[in-house]
């Protein structure tokens, strides 16, 4: 929590004879994040791939070509194939399959090409069917230039008026005009000009002889025969696919793993008799590697931890409890924290559902969202991102239900009881008496909602500055002090806000009597605004310290802190906006449903209500609440401390989905 998994720089060294076993062992354990070896010298060079690499790569190439030919890239084998079965059968299977698949795939491709060519010929010949001239007579003259093609408009008049000796055949066909124009060779340029004015598109005639109508008939017959052949070949391919798809996919996976391991020496240092694998291991798992190497390599390889160098950047594996893990999704969208930075996932876990719940704040929509989240979470288990997103929506939905039930006392935009200010408003009281009254009425306690938003903003931003201080305190005292100055500035600003509002809202009253109780009450009046002297002292202290630590230009950013705080008004704005939208639809449509006295109108209004509530309030409302809740974290909160740019921990490891390793 808040800190990533602790990493230890380690080297695995051993005799070159045990390299293969060591690599296999490291992949099995999946705990070593390899640092690629690049600095070659006379002693140590980049290693050579293991002996089996070349053979396995060739087999893999063949299998992948088969997978493409058989079109089984997306096939998921039903049963996992044991690795020993793959190893026993692969040689024989490759010979048989290679012969069958490649010959069938070639045949299929040739037939498809032939069919495409013949279809092209038919397309070229069809417009000429009614002109009645054999194909060979269109071309092949010494002194005559032929033009055969399609025009948007009939060019025959223009041609006969501009060119003395010409012959034009034409026929209107599907909005185009088919033309065959014959002119003397010397008139070619003029003909080209006239035809281009009529949007002429040339038809490229096939090298065939005979009447176009007969040729089209013959070609159609040939295509039919070819299609029959294609079907036979496809059937053969289908039967191969059915019989071997599982085996091919499982073998491809196994060989890919074999190649991955066999090529790993290209990333490590080897000498004539030894190897050195440099990398990072989670501190808690160093002993696992040692035990495994002792067992498998019989003392020929061992692991040693070394102190990290000053500029080392260990890889980052976020370490969070199971409930918090899904919120790492939001971190993945931005950037991995650096190793020595605070990981803010835990804060996302707390603030996102709270902000979201406050903005949605409705029992009906909250339960709906929680159900939606649960469906995504448990029905799409094969997609890790869907599981995370589902959990996030589920958490947001639960908080929205809690806010809706206890704070705002409303469901589907309809309050449990009519508000005091408007006793005629539709409420659930007409149907069921829920003994919960709202602590806040979205549409009426706007000042209170804003005050709560600002308190949330102050706490959130202050936490950001605290994190900023912690992140900087070891590297740069100056930046750490700047964070304290920002913290004081924010505290002063917020104290002044609460002081100014005074007892006008219960929230500010509470803050003034608790958090700010110890602050002196002294104040002065400035342009009609009561200014707290304590707030001024805090803000001036911050504003004086800031330029000393971050340079004078930082003074231009001071207004930004006010912007940041006001930005949290969106919590209230979204809640009120969503409440207002639901209220508007309910006010328009509920009277039609209950008071119109006409079943048809009532039914139509009910459908309208469901659609508007679903689309505008549930879908758009939840979407914008989600975006705003994460935005407050990404923009206002993260900018106070987060740099990101850490390297993800990606250890040597493989995943077997369709094959089972030997014990």
């Amino acid at each position, binding site marked *: 929590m808040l800190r990533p998994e602790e990493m230890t720089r380690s080297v695995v060294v051993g005799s070159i004879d045990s390299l293969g076993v060591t690599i296999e062992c490291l992949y099995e354990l999946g705990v070593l994040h390899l640092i690629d070896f690049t600095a070659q010298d006379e002693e140590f060079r980049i290693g050579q791939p293991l002996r089996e690499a070349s053979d396995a790569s060739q087999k893999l190439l063949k299998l992948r070509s088969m997978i493409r030919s058989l079109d089984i890239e997306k096939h998921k084998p039903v049963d996992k194939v044991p690795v020993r079965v793959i190893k026993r059968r692969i040689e024989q299977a490759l010979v048989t399959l290679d012969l069958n698949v490649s010959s069938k795939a070639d045949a299929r491709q040739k037939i498809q090409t032939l069919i495409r060519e013949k279809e092209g010929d038919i397309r070229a010949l069809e417009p000429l069917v009614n002109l009645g001239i054999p194909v060979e007579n269109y071309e092949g003259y010494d002194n005559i230039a032929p033009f055969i093609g399609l025009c948007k408009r009939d060019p025959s008049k223009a041609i006969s008026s501009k060119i003395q000796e010409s012959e034009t055949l034409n026929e209107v066909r599907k909005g185009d005009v088919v033309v065959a124009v014959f002119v003397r060779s010397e008139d070619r340029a003029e003909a080209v000009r006239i035809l281009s004015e009529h949007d002429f598109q040339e038809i490229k005639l096939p090298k065939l002889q005979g009447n176009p109508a007969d040729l089209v008939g013959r070609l159609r017959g040939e295509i039919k025969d070819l299609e029959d052949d294609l079907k036979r070949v496809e059937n053969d391919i289908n039967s191969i696919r059915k019989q071997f798809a599982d085996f091919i996919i499982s073998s491809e996976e196994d060989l890919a793993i074999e190649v991955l391991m066999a090529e790993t020496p290209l990333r490590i240092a080897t000498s004539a008799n030894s190897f050195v694998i440099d990398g990072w291991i989670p501190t808690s798992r160093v002993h696992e590697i040692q035990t495994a190497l002792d067992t498998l390599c019989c003392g020929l390889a061992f692991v040693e931890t070394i102190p990290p160098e000053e500029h080392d950047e260990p890889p980052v594996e976020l370490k969070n409890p199971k409930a918090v893990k899904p919120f790492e999704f*939001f971190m*993945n*969208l*931005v*950037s991995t924290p650096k190793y020595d930075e605070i990981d803010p996932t835990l804060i996302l876990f707390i603030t996102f559902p709270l902000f979201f719940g406050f903005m949605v704040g409705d029992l009906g929509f909250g339960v709906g969202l929680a159900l939606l989240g649960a469906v995504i979470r448990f029905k799409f288990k094969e997609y890790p991102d869907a599981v995370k997103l589902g959990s996030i929506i589920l958490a947001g939905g639960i908080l929205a239900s809690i806010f809706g039930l206890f704070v705002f006392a409303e469901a589907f935009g309809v309050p449990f009881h009519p508000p005091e200010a408007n006793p005629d408003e539709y409420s659930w009281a007409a149907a069921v008496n829920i003994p919960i009254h709202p602590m806040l009425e979205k549409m009426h306690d*706007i*000042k209170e909602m*804003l005050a709560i938003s600002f308190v949330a903003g102050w706490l959130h931003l202050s936490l950001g500055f605290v994190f900023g201080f912690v992140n900087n305190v070891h590297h740069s005292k100056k930046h750490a002090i700047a964070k304290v100055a920002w913290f004081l500035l924010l505290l002063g600003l917020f104290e002044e806000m609460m002081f100014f509002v005074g007892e006008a809202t219960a929230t500010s009253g509470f803050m003034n009597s608790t958090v700010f109780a110890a602050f002196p009450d002294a104040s002065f009046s400035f342009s009609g605004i009561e200014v707290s002297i304590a707030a001024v002292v805090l803000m001036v202290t911050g504003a004086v310290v800031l330029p000393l630590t971050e340079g004078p230009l930082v003074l231009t950013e001071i207004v930004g802190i006010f*912007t940041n705080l*006001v*930005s949290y*008004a*969106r919590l209230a*704005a979204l809640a009120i906006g969503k409440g207002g939208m639901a209220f508007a639809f309910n006010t328009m449509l509920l009277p039609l449903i209950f008071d119109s006295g006409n079943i048809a109108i009532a039914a139509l209004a009910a459908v309208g209500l469901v659609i508007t509530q679903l689309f505008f309030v549930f879908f758009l409302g939840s979407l914008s609440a989600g*975006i*705003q809740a*994460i*935005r407050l974290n*990404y*923009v206002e909160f993260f900018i106070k401390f987060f740099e990101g740019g850490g390297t993800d921990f990606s250890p040597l490891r493989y995943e077997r989905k369709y094959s089972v390793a030997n014990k």
Partner: protein
Amino acid sequence: MDLGTGLALVGAGIAVGVAGLGTGVAQGQVGAAAVGATAEDPKMFGKGLILMVLPETIVIFGFVVAILLWISK
């Protein structure tokens, strides 16, 4: 309702409306660029989202001004 209150309410409406327009114009341009960047590299989604939602603060200012006008009417 007197004229002053009416004008304050009109002002509140203008504050939200025009601020919303400003946000829309800014967000449209940032959004187009963000979608382009995300199409090139899906990892840019998070950064694109951050940049895209930045102008939303403008409309929040409009909202706050509107509320201040409405409260003081």
